Each structure stands twice: as C-alpha cells, then as structure tokens.
C-alpha cells in the first residue's frame, strides 16, 4: 500500500475515516495517570483506552464543524490530547470572489504539566508565564542572563484556524514558555532540606521555583492563495448563501415595509372608520345644537 510518504517515520500519526480517528502507528498518550498505547478506538474497550475518540492529528477534522464543537488534537510533542473551543470568525481574501470564512478555536491550555513526555519536571505555560500561579511565600527572584525575568502582562497565541465546512486547518499557532521546577511543585522553604528529595544539593537554591527553560513557538499556516483556490467551491457556496441571505433579507425588509404602509393606508382609507368618523361628527353637531337650545 502506498502511504504517500517518503518513509515509515513520515507517515502521519492519525487519519480520519468516517469521522473516526485512527492511528497509523502505535501511538502513546498520557491520560493523566498512565501511558496508554493506542492504535484505534474500539467501542468495546474501557473508556480509558478510547483516548483517540474524536481526536485529530491537527490538519484535518470531520467536515461540517459547528461553532459549539470542541476540537481535540493529539500533541505528539507533549504526548497529550489538547482541546480547543470556538473563539471568533474571520475571512480570508476578504472582498475577493474567493472570500472564505474560517473560524478560530482557542487552545484550552498550553500543555501545563508536560513532564511525562520528557521525564523532566517541566511545565508549558503562556509566554512569560502569563496568568501563572504565584507562590505568595516566594521571595526569590529569577534572572536570565543577569536581568530580572519579566512576567508577561498579556496572553500569548495558542489557537487553531479551521475552515468549518471542509474541516481543513488553515493555521496552527502556539507560543509558550517551558519552565522547570526542581521537585515538581512550587514551594519555598528556607534551608529545609527535609522536603528536598532530590540528589542535587547544589540545586537547592532553586528548589520549588519555576525557572524558564526555553521559549517555544510554532506557526504552521497554509498559503492563503492556494488554500482559498482549493476551497473556491466552498467560497462560492458561501457567497451564494450570503447573496441569498442578503436577497431574502432585502425582500423580507421590503415586504415588511410594504405591509406597514399597506396597513396604514388601509386604516386611513377604511370605509368603516370613515363612517364612524361621520357619525361622530354628526353627534358632536347635535350636542352643540342641544346646548344652544338649552341656553
């Protein structure tokens, strides 16, 4: 069977058949407790072994995605499944005939505890540890190349842009910083080596403190021209739908206005309303005449 790759190591990890994910190779996943070896989801298996249910490799999802769907990607680097939720909608080639709507889904985490994948006490967080937990007892300061480490004041990118109708990914972008914490938990205890069950006494000064290991940045983006050309048929359908919606909206508005005008005219020209009005005039005239007589 021709796999479409140049070698065994270049085969994609996951493929989707009939909206179900299958692993082309034996895939390892950390489900938070155990390392699970998976080839494909089997409904007869325990839920622990169905980690790949509705999980994608990241480049393609089942078509006709809804905005309230949660997209799940297998992160091969961190050996984790990462969920994404809808954030916003936008257009490629805006104003062009091939204008294509794409939707952005935000990652629900940057990875957090990824130590399992590396056998190291490492944690992946937003750039500059934005939003990280700060140990209130911490009095140490982290310096990088002699300068005070600056904690970020804004979140960093961690999103996935997908064409909902086709299910193809347009862009994946993630920017994070990986931190190492000797001991695995944030703690600060002065000269209390009783809690330091590590074989590195020279690292005691940084025990329990998150210090930046490296910055991580990835940005995988399809060529906009090629992407929009390939999905021109979807753009055309979207444009037709858009035009139909506009036309229907205009017509609906027109008929609504027409209905209001018609009702108004009808009310104004209503014969019954005119008859009533004549009778009212006569009654007033009669009343006035009676008053004159009484006077």
């Amino acid at each position, binding site marked *: 069977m021709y796999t479409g790759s140049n070698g065994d190591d270049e085969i994609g990890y996951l493929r989707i058949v009939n909206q179900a994910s299958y692993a082309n190779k034996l895939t390892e996943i950390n489900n938070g407790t155990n390392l699970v070896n998976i080839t494909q989801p089997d409904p007869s298996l325990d839920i622990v072994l169905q980690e790949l249910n509705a999980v994608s490799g990241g480049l393609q999802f089942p078509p006709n995605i809804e905005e309230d769907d949660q997209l799940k990607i297998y992160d*091969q*680097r*961190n*050996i984790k499944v990462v969920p994404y939720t809808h954030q916003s909608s936008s257009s490629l080639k805006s104003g062009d005939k091939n204008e294509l709507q794409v939707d952005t889904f935000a990652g629900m985490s940057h990875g957090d505890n990824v130590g399992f*994948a*590396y056998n*190291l006490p490492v944690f992946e967080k937003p750039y500059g540890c934005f939003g990280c937990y700060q140990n209130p007892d911490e009095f140490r300061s982290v310096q990088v190349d002699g300068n005070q480490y600056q904690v970020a004041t804004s979140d960093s990118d961690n999103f996935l842009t997908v064409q909902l109708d086709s299910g193809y990914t347009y862009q994946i972008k993630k920017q994070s910083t*990986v931190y190492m914490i000797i001991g695995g938990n944030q703690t600060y205890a002065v000269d209390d*080596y*009783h*809690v*330091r*069950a*590590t*074989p*590195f*006494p*020279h*690292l005691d000064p940084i025990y329990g403190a998150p210090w930046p*290991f*490296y910055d991580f940045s990835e940005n995988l983006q399809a060529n906009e021209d090629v992407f929009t050309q390939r999905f021109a048929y979807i753009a055309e359908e979207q444009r037709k739908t858009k035009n139909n919606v506009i036309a229907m909206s205009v017509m609906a508005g027109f008929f609504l206005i027409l209905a209001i005008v018609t009702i108004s005219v009808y009310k104004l020209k209503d014969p019954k309303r005119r008859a009533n009005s004549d009778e009212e005039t006569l009654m007033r005239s009669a009343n006035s005449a009676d008053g004159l007589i009484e006077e």
Partner: protein
Amino acid sequence: MAQALASNYNHFGCKAPVVKGVSNCTAEEISSLQWGSLGVTNNPNPATNAYYVPKSTSTALWGQPSWLPFGVMTDVGEYPQQTAPQQKDWQYLSSSAVQAMMTRMPTTGSLASTYSWQQFLIPYFLQNQTTVAKYEAAWGNNVTTDIFVEALRARIETAYFGGAFADIKLKELFFGFENTFAAGVSSGDYILGNDYSLSNWTTPIMTD
C-alpha cells in the same frame, strides 16, 4: 602473613573472633573504618607495609589495579568528604557506627540492607519523625541523620551525575544526547528488582 594480619588486627582495633589461632580483621571492619572516618588511609599500620595502604584520603587513590577485581578505583566515595567542602568541617562516623548502620535496622531480619536504606529515606523525606527516631536509635547517637542524608545527596550528585551543572549544546537539547549516568543508575541486582530500564539517551525538548 599471620604476624602482619595480627599487627593490623591490633593497629586498627578489630574485634573479629580469632579463627584457628589467627587474628584477622574482617572486610566489614576495614571498610567501615575507612568509609566512615578514613581510618585506614589516614592511619596506616607502619609495622606492616605502608606501601599497601599509603597515606591517602581515599582507597581510590591507592592505585594498585592488580589488588582489586575491578581495576583502579577512580571514585572517591568516603563519607567524610561528602559532608562538607572544607576538610576542617568534615563529619566522621566511627567504624562501630558504620557497622551498626549496615547491620542494625528496625526491620532486622526481614529485608536486605540496600532495601532498608530505601525504607529509611522514605520516612525521612516524608518527615515521619517517629520512624526516623527508630533508625537513629538503632544506629547510635553518633549518627546525625540530617548530615548523613546530605552526605548521600552530595555523593549521588557527584558520583552518579558528575555534578549538578553541565554545558549542553542547543543541538543536544533538540536532538538529544547520550548521558553517562543512566548506566550507573540502571544497575544493581536484577533479582532484587533494581531498575535496568533507564535509557541513556536524553531528549530535553523533543520527544520521538
């Protein structure tokens, strides 16, 4: 030979029973004396032959591969040198204290000594003072467990990992490098369940 052994027996204060009229130190006595207080290399017996135990801070520096089944000992592993960086601050353990630590455990008769060391470190780091006190009582007042554990940590850091700091190239961070400590850690007695599964290939950033 018998005279030389008897001379060592008296010089090092051994107490092993005399066998067939020959007094001789046991290996446990000599090794305990050396490991806890450098009592052999710092106090060689001049009556025998100083050549065999020249004054030194470690048996590793005696340097006669023909004596030893494993060749030259390159590792300085004596206890005092792990307790403080300066010699004036070194902590010493008497031979009797070391022998007590090697033989007298709260779980005497049920576990091998290597496993009992692990049994000791678990309550120590969990700060179970009751259990730690039992170990201290079994070993004698000469042993301060805090200093002892610090010595073990320093020993592991230097002997197994070659120190806590290393210069690692960017390429090695990405594509991995062969570590030297896995072989040391992945060892021991397989029958006793010691770990042999550690890989000697470290990949800090990428996984494969």
